[in-house]
Each structure stands twice: as structure tokens, then as C-alpha cells.
């Protein structure tokens, strides 16, 4: 019994370490790709690490003096790491439990809520506008994520993410799961904060929005949280909705999941490169349509397709 706990704990720690290391690396690769499409050379692949280390080494300039405000960046990073432990990786969620799908839906919103609170607390008009945009984005994207996960849960007959992944891997593609997967793919674009949906940050309009007052270690942690978040959501997508081929060998499945995640992120980056930024109400309209489309997936799931 104790050995099992230890093993779970060890896997969770490894998972967190993997996410922390891989997410800046993936971001670095994406920047390189984006630069290539821009006819630029671009920064070295390890630049996100260098930036993060540099920012972490700077003084913590708190513009608002409150204990709660001081810890929001760390909590934001922690929340996405917790989310990461509930999402299957290589077919197995490191800290999976019965009903963890509900947990995923809730924890997924925590990071955004922390960012919104930070924005409103920081007292800058740009952050306030960014915060309200972030809130609107959250409200329009979260339903899409929820509906797609419900489709998975209905099809697999379980509220466990690992269960859904295993069911999908063994049953092969179905109409409802594919549709739900596509809807979730569209949501990843916003969850990763990429164009045309980087509306809350919108450097050219509101100078980074919620992050305008963040610098040094606080900025590093928020950005790190953003990178982990884009990787975790991509993993959620490929593990639950596109888990094939699954060999049953953990390491092979892990590598294949990461490769598929990279592929999805490349698509996300290409969409980012070929689009200008939408306005927040245009983005909300878009996600409303995506949410309705994902209801179609739900309908298919109800009739068993």
C-alpha cells in the first residue's frame, strides 16, 4: 500500500518536472517556427529558459502590497501543474481519480481567475480592461471545454480522464468524439493565448493587459504557467480524443503523446501566424458558435455514434 502511494507520488513529481522543462522547450520550438514563417532567424530554442532564469533573478517589484497579491503567480503556476497531474500522459493520469474530469473542468479555470484577480488588484486601467477581457474569454471558452469532456464521459461511461482515454484508444474513432476533439482543438487556441485570441494581453492595445504591472519573478511565473497551460491542454486533447496508436508500453505512449502534442501546437502556431487579433466580442461570437457545434457532438453521443 505504502509502495503504491510512493510510486504515485514519484510519478506525479516526475510529471510536474517534465511539464516544467518541456513547456518552455515547446514554446522555444514554436518561436523558431514562427520566426521561420516571418522570414526571421528567431531566438535560440532555449530562449524561454534563459528569459525565465533572468526574470527569476530580478528583484520582486510589488506594486500592490497584500499577501494574497504576492502569491498569485505561484498559485497560477501551481494550479496548471495540478491540472497537469490530472491529465493523462502516456495514457495514465499521474494523479487520476474517479471523477477527475469534473476536477479538470474546475482546476482549468483557476489560473485564469487568479490572473483576473491580479489584474483588477494591480490598479492599472490597462490591466482592468485586460482583466475584463480575460473574464469574457474564460466565460466563452470554458463551456466548449466542458461540453467536449461531457461527450467523452458519456461515450466512455466514466468520469475518469484515464478511463475516457483508454476507452477511446480501444474503440477507435467515433463521430461524436472526433467532433468534440475538433471543438476542443479550437478552444486550445484561446487557452494557449495565441492569435487571433490573445485578446486579453493585446500588447498593441492595452500593453499586455493583466500582465502590464507584472515584472521579474512574478512575470516569469505567470509566463511559465501560460506555457504549461498550453502543453497541458494540448495533452488533454490528444490523450482523450486522439489517443491512437496506443502500444500499451508507457514510454512509447508517452513519446507518441508528446509528439502529437507538438504537432497540435505547430498547427496552433501556424494559425497564430496567419491571423490578426480579433476583438473580444468577435471572439465571444466565434466561441459561441463553437460551443453550439460541440453540442452537435453531444447529440451524436446521445444517439450512440
Amino acid at each position: 500500500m505504502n509502495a503504491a502511494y510512493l510510486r504515485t507520488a514519484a510519478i506525479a513529481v516526475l510529471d510536474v518536472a517534465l511539464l516544467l522543462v518541456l513547456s518552455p522547450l515547446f514554446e522555444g520550438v514554436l518561436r523558431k517556427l514562427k520566426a521561420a514563417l516571418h522570414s526571421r532567424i528567431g531566438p535560440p530554442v532555449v530562449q524561454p529558459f534563459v528569459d525565465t532564469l533572468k526574470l527569476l533573478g530580478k528583484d520582486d517589484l510589488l506594486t500592490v502590497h497584500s499577501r494574497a497579491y504576492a502569491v498569485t503567480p505561484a498559485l497560477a503556476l501551481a494550479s496548471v501543474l495540478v491540472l497537469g497531474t490530472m491529465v493523462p500522459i502516456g495514457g495514465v493520469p499521474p494523479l487520476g481519480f474517479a471523477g477527475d474530469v469534473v476536477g479538470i473542468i474546475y482546476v482549468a479555470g483557476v489560473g485564469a481567475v487568479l490572473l483576473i484577480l491580479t489584474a483588477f488588484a494591480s490598479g492599472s486601467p490597462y490591466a482592468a480592461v485586460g482583466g475584463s477581457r480575460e473574464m469574457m474569454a474564460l466565460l466563452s471558452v470554458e463551456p466548449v471545454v466542458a461540453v467536449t469532456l461531457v461527450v467523452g464521459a458519456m461515450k466512455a461511461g466514466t468520469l475518469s480522464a484515464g478511463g475516457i482515454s483508454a476507452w477511446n484508444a480501444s474503440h477507435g474513432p467515433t463521430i461524436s468524439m472526433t467532433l468534440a476533439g475538433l471543438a476542443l482543438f479550437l478552444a486550445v487556441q484561446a487557452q494557449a493565448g495565441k492569435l487571433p485570441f490573445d485578446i486579453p494581453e493585446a500588447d498593441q492595445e492595452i500593453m499586455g493587459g493583466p500582465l502590464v504591472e507584472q515584472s521579474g519573478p512574478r512575470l516569469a511565473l505567470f509566463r511559465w504557467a501560460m506555457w504549461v497551460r498550453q502543453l497541458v491542454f494540448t495533452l488533454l486533447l490528444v490523450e482523450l480524443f486522439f489517443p491512437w496508436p496506443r502500444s500499451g508500453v508507457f514510454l512509447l505512449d508517452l513519446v507518441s503523446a508528446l509528439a502529437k502534442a507538438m504537432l497540435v501546437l505547430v498547427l496552433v502556431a501556424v494559425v497564430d501566424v496567419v491571423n490578426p487579433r480579433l476583438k473580444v466580442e468577435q471572439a465571444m461570437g466565434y466561441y459561441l458558435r463553437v460551443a453550439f457545434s460541440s453540442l452537435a457532438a453531444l447529440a451524436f453521443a446521445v444517439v450512440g455514434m
Partner: protein
Amino acid sequence: MIATAAAETATLLRSRLGAGVLGAREMDPDLLWASVDRSCVREATTVMKEIGSRYLVTVGIDERPLGGGYGIVHLFSLDAEHLFIAVDCPVSAGDPRIDSITPLIPGASWAEREFRDMIGVEPEGHPDPKRLVLPDDWPEGVHPLRRDVAYNYRPPSVEGFAPELVKPPRGSSVLPVGPFFPVLEEPARFRLFVEGETVVGCDYRGFYNHRGIEKLGDSVLTWDRIPFLAERICGICGFIHSTCYCQAVEKAADIEVPRRAAYIRTVMLELERIHSHLLWLGIAGHILGFDTVLMQTWRIREPVMWLTEEISGNRKTYGMNLVGGVRRDITDAQLPRILDVLKTVEKEALAVRKAIADDSTLHARTVGVGPLSTWWAKEICAVGPPARASNVLIDARIDHPYAAYDDLKPRLCSSDGCDVWARVIVRLDELEDSIRLVREALANLPAGAVRAEFDEIPGGRVGVSAVEAPRGEAIHFVMTGGENRPYRWRVRAPTFPNLQAVPAMIRGQSIADVPISIGSLDPCFSCTERMETVSVADGSRRIYTLQELQALAQSARARRGNGDGGAP
């Protein structure tokens, strides 16, 4: 034909104003100078509006050393007849007041505020008589363009001064854009009054960059130095300003520019339009978060910069113009290279155009955004692509042909879209047309000299010149003086009228639309405010000795050398 129009206008003014017309004469073939009594200024303006002329700018002149008072000269353009009309209203020195014409022509607002600041004549009945150019803590009663104020006058410093700010309407809050803002390349301050994401109003304060270029021109420099200063008015369309200044002097002094020089100017002007429009397209993309457009257009633009470097020696700020012609010829050996670059630029610009033409996300961000109605564009006297994109059919190259545009007819690119997208399309059309114009100019390049010699330029003459800059029509007014320099040199950059359209364009829009709405004007604050950098160097030379400057440069090198990873 111009002469007929001038005579008819003079007759009309006389019949309407009677004894109010103090004199009317043709200064240039294309300039009617009408002196009217200041009490008739509104009536004269009404006549100008009735005959369909377009307000350009107002020039304030301190004529006290000449034995007069102050001259307030409203400039108009009768585009169809290619005629400039100057309505000159002498104002007595003891009673410096004149009726404001802003109630008749909203576009005159800034120009009137400017002469209020700079010359000290009060525009009576102006709806918003506050400072435009002078800093808020500038002492009362010091008007820099008066002849008795030295060019290097420095007001005493003021402590603890806070300017009074316009209060936002009830229920709205203030979102500052500027003085420094990511997508404003230069300082300007728009205080947006917002309700949620909707802009309900704004307050503008600019002219943080005013460096007194006009003052330097009419008190320190000489005829042939000013083109180099004029070129530094703008970092992008500098050649426009040096050409415009030279043409104004050439008109005033009756200097015939050799045809070859006129063609070379045309080539350089159009090359400048090509790289400026590509630059703008990139910035517009960047404002919308579409950095791919920025990176690609600036990559396409770069060979044009190398080309101008090959022709003039400089990527920008060519230093080619002089009164009477140009300093650099285009050799036959350069022609194939220029044509090669044009071919590449044309091909790649077309590819960009194709890529963005049907981009639905781009349309969502630009169609219907930053609206400027045809009516308001005319009222506010907008110029250039923003005016043409609002279906106001004006183009200085056609309205007042200069350089070689009498031979090489430009296409008037316009649209009735009245929004940001229309401004994109107009500029893309102009880009193509500019490439054609350069090709035609090079194919028909006449032989001969590139510069005319001239003798002493007599005083008391006036020249008005318009040049179609990439951003719109630039106007230079030169009144000659006897000291080998202008008595008064007035520059009106295209952004000066266009920026006045901003409040109407962003009212009711969302915050997200504000940067691209302002950006769609291709605003150039340094042009508008006539900032320039050479005067700093000039000033430095007066303060520092050469040795001191060298020591300064060496210490800067030393500092760089001590920094981490610095060059040896």
C-alpha cells in the same frame, strides 16, 4: 486658364466684399494673393467655400519689422483650376485679434490655435481656444515666431506645474494612450474616455516634439541649408519636405528647374512613396497583432532602401535637393538595377496583397472601423489616402502638378469605403501606381543638367508649394527675405489636418479599434510638430568645442567597452 480663374476669383471677392478687399494680385502663375480687411475675414472665407476651394492652412507672419502689424494668411486651394488663393488679413500690432474661421471650417481649428500660440493673434470666436503647440507651462505673452523672440530663447523653468485636464464625461473613465504607447512610434497623448470597452470621447495633447524648425529657417539658416533641415522634418518622407521647400523658393524666385532634375525628383518621391506605404502596411499589420505582415512587408521594403542608398548615398534623408535642382544624378548604369528592384518589389507586394485581400479575420478588424465620412473628411480638410479612402478626390500631384507630374500622370486611387480597409486598399493601389510612375520616369528621363544656377533672391516674394507625400498633401509657404533666407517659412505636414479627424473616427468605437484607427492615418507626429534632430547637433556645436565632443564620444565608447559582452 489659371489666370482666368484668378481674375474671376478676385472680381468675385471685390463684388462681395467691396472696400473690404485691400488689394488682389497674382504673385505666381498659380497664386492669387488677396488682401482683405480683417473684419471681412469670415465673409471672404464664405466666398472661398462657395467657389468650392479647399482650406489648406493658415500662416501667421510677424510683419512689424516691415512696417506692418501681423499678417494672418489663410491659404486655400481651388483644385479644379490648379490655383492657390491666399487670403491675407493684416492685423494691427496694437490690437492683435481676428475673427476665427473655425466655425465655418472645422479644419482650421489647429492652425488658428497655432498662430494664437506662435504669433500671438487671438482668434475670436474659436470654439476651443487653448494651447496647441506651446507647452502648458510656457510663459504667457511669449510668442516664439514673433521676430523679437530669439531662436534660442529658453523660458525659465517652472516647478510643480500641472496642466488642467479635460474632465471625462459622467460615467466614463480615462484610458490613457500615450504620451508613450507601444504602437505610437512618437509621443502623443490621447486620453480616451471609455465606458467599458466603448470610447465615448477623447482629449488630445501633442506637440511634445516641437523643435522650432520654422524659426531656425527664418533666423539662422540660409536658402541652401534649409533643404537639409527640411528633409529632417520627417524620418520617412523627408524628401517630400525638401522638395516642397525648394519648389516654394523656386516659385517665389522664378527659378526654372531643369527637366532632368524634375524627373529625378519624381523618381525619388515615388520611391519614397513605395517604401513608405510598405512600411505603413507593416505597422498596420503589427497594430492588429498580424506580425507576419510586418515582417514580410519590411523584408520587401529593404531593397528599396538599398536602392536609394545606391542613388543618393543614404537609405533615408538623401540630402539630394537644393534650390534649383538636385545634387545627385541617376546614371545609366544604375537603371537596370532600379528596374530589377522594382520588379521584385512589385511581384512580392502583389503576393502580400493577394494574401491579405480575402483574409476574413483582417476584414473583421478593418471593415467599418475608424469611419471617416466624406462630409467630415471635407469639413476637417483631411488629405492623402485617408481623404481619398473617404471618396474625397484630391491628390496634390494632380491638383497642383509639380516636378514631372505634368508629363507623368498619376492615377487617382480612391475608394468610398470610408474605413480602415479602404485606406489599406488605396495605399496598395498607390504602391502599384508608384512603381509604374518610376518606370515611366526612368524610360523618359531627359538629358541635361540637374541643377539651375540662380542669383540673389529678392525679398518680399511669396511661393506656395504642395507635394503629395505618402501621408497626404504637404504644403510649404515661403516669403522671401533680404538676408539670404526666408522671412517666413511655413510647413504644413499632412498629419496636421488628418490628426484632427481622430476624435470623430474613434467615437463609439471599441478600445481595440483605437490603435488601428489612429494608425490608419499613417500619422507622423514629428512631421506635424516639425521635430528634427540636426538642430540638436547644431545646438551642441555651439555649446561644446570639438575637443569636448571628442572626449564625450570617447567616454561613451569607454562605457560601452566596460559593459558586459560589449564590443572591444
